């Protein structure tokens, strides 16, 4: 019998990084070493601890990383609490990759890119950002606007400071919600910060974060003159199968697991407002 996508592979957790008080990044390789499977930026995988649960997580590492995959996971439910409590060396089950991906080889090529993220919303965009950094000549200028509740809640802070900010042609704008001792950067919410920064409207935008942030940021972008065909996002709904059969992650006729998770806002406009 052929392999069935519902039967998972084994992954070994080889590194756990505490990113923020409630976000950890897990490094996963196959028991034989190397990646369990290849993916494209924006795609997801189903991770599970048998007996605890299975859930869909975006693959936060770039496919240009040839050694391992990474998942940045916020502790918020049964499975994620278990994942946060485990130690290095723990095996998990993994299946995928699932869904479409950001159009890094087509629509995004040659474009100036504006990444906008809030909180854990950086996780799926980090895959694209590092993909773009590793294929730098294929893209124009890169601007990253990233905000969180506090300095401690900025995911991948070390990588942002040490690597992204050190790159030429990448502008990083960080912001936190409220003033904090030891923070001399911008303070304020992401939607307002984007408007203040007044980015050039020829940029292609990739946005991910809490729904309320996306809503107000999109409105602000439109005020600046951006159109919905320039703005991509990635969605999340409850999933069981990850292949468009279990019937629960649909927005109208589209399944987030297989037709998404990446959508352009003009595509979402044609779908019912139920997410």
């Amino acid at each position, binding site marked *: *019998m052929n392999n069935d996508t519902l039967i998972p592979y084994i992954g070994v957790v080889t590194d756990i990084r505490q990113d923020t008080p409630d976000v950890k990044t897990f490094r996963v390789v196959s028991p034989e070493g190397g990646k369990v499977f290849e993916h494209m930026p924006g795609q997801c995988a189903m991770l599970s601890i048998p007996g605890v649960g299975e859930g869909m997580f975006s693959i936060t590492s770039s496919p240009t990383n040839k050694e391992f995959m990474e998942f940045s996971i916020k502790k918020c*439910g049964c499975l*994620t609490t278990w994942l946060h409590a485990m130690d290095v060396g723990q*095996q998990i089950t993994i299946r995928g990759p699932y869904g479409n991906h950001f159009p890094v080889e087509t629509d995004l090529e040659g474009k100036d890119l504006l990444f906008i993220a809030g909180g854990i919303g950086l996780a799926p965009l980090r895959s694209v950002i590092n993909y773009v950094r590793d294929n730098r000549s294929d893209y124009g200028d890169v601007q990253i606007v990233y905000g969180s509740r506090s300095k401690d809640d900025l995911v991948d802070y070390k990588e942002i400071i040490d690597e992204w900010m050190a790159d030429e042609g990448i502008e990083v704008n960080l912001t936190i919600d409220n003033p904090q001792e030891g923070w001399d950067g911008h303070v304020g919410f992401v939607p307002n910060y984007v408007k203040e920064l007044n980015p050039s409207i020829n940029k292609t935008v990739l946005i991910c974060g809490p729904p309320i942030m996306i809503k107000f940021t999109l409105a602000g972008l439109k005020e600046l003159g951006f159109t919905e065909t320039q703005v991509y996002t990635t969605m999340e709904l409850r999933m*069981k*199968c990850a292949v468009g*059969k279990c019937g*629960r992650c649909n927005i109208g006729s589209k399944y987030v697991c297989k037709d998404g998770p990446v959508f352009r806002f003009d595509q979402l406009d044609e779908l019912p407002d139920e997410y």
Partner: protein
Amino acid sequence: MLKISIDKLDELFEAISASQTLYIPTDREDGAAEYRKYESGMKLSNALNTVRSAKDFFFPQTENLVDFKMEGKNIEVIDIRKESEDFVIFGVRACDARSFTILDKVFLAEPVDSYYKTRREHGTVVTMACTRPSETCFCGVFGIDATAPEGDAACWSDGESFFFEAHNEKGQKFIDSISSLLEDGDTAKLEETREKTRSILKKLPLAGLSTESFGGDRMMEHFNSEKWGELSESCLGCGTCTFVCPTCQCYDIKDFNTGHGIKRFRCWDSCMYSDFTKMAHGNPRLTQLERFRQRFMHKLVYFPANNNGEFGCVGCGRCLSKCPISMNIVKVMKALEVK
């Protein structure tokens, strides 16, 4: 046409069940019809249809997908799949036969569901034409002819004999396997019976129901309809409609710790349930209105949008007779009809 006399049905069932498992609709002690594994002496039900649909044969209510052994930090994945054995489902009605091709569009689409596929490959569907359609029947609305059911092979009764016809190789194999019991028969009386049934079908109260207002291109119009509030108001969210529906295929995946390992199961689920879409950070379908709307939008709009216009309903009428508050797809279609 090849036929067998009705009084030889027992012989027929014995012959089929000698080589493979046979399921037939039979009457329970309480009079309700259900599919059961054939055993000597079991009688074919005279009921129009079974209470539960026939989807269980290919998409069982619960099934074990995979097992895991946990030892320290290690996990072992145990593939427990087995090739299905050959079986025959006899007496499937036209509506339920069509439901299989609808389920095929879900489970056999890439990536193919191997659990479903093996049962589909090993199951032979022998359909049985209707002669007494009821007032809750509306298969004709979805282009289904109750007097010419699909399936691998079909059979018709003229009250005295059962006539057989193969629709494909698998069906021909089935007929060949019982050919020693069959004889050539005159179909004049059968044609009369079919004609009579056709005229009943035309006069059924729901025969005039129209699908014209529905389809994949009507998504926003129907989704934003103001009628959903009133339609869903008394829905109890009990999920009976999805349980008896031959095309409802939403499922859940859940693990069970046996004490000796973990068994992962697939179970039927229902979009009518409040936790169906509930996530750690919220629920996009908060009230019964959204859940109710999802079920009917899926059958009448989303499914056709993804399947060349084919609707996700076969008009079997089970939800009409089983819903505790007498709400059903017919009322929804009438309410949303664009005049």
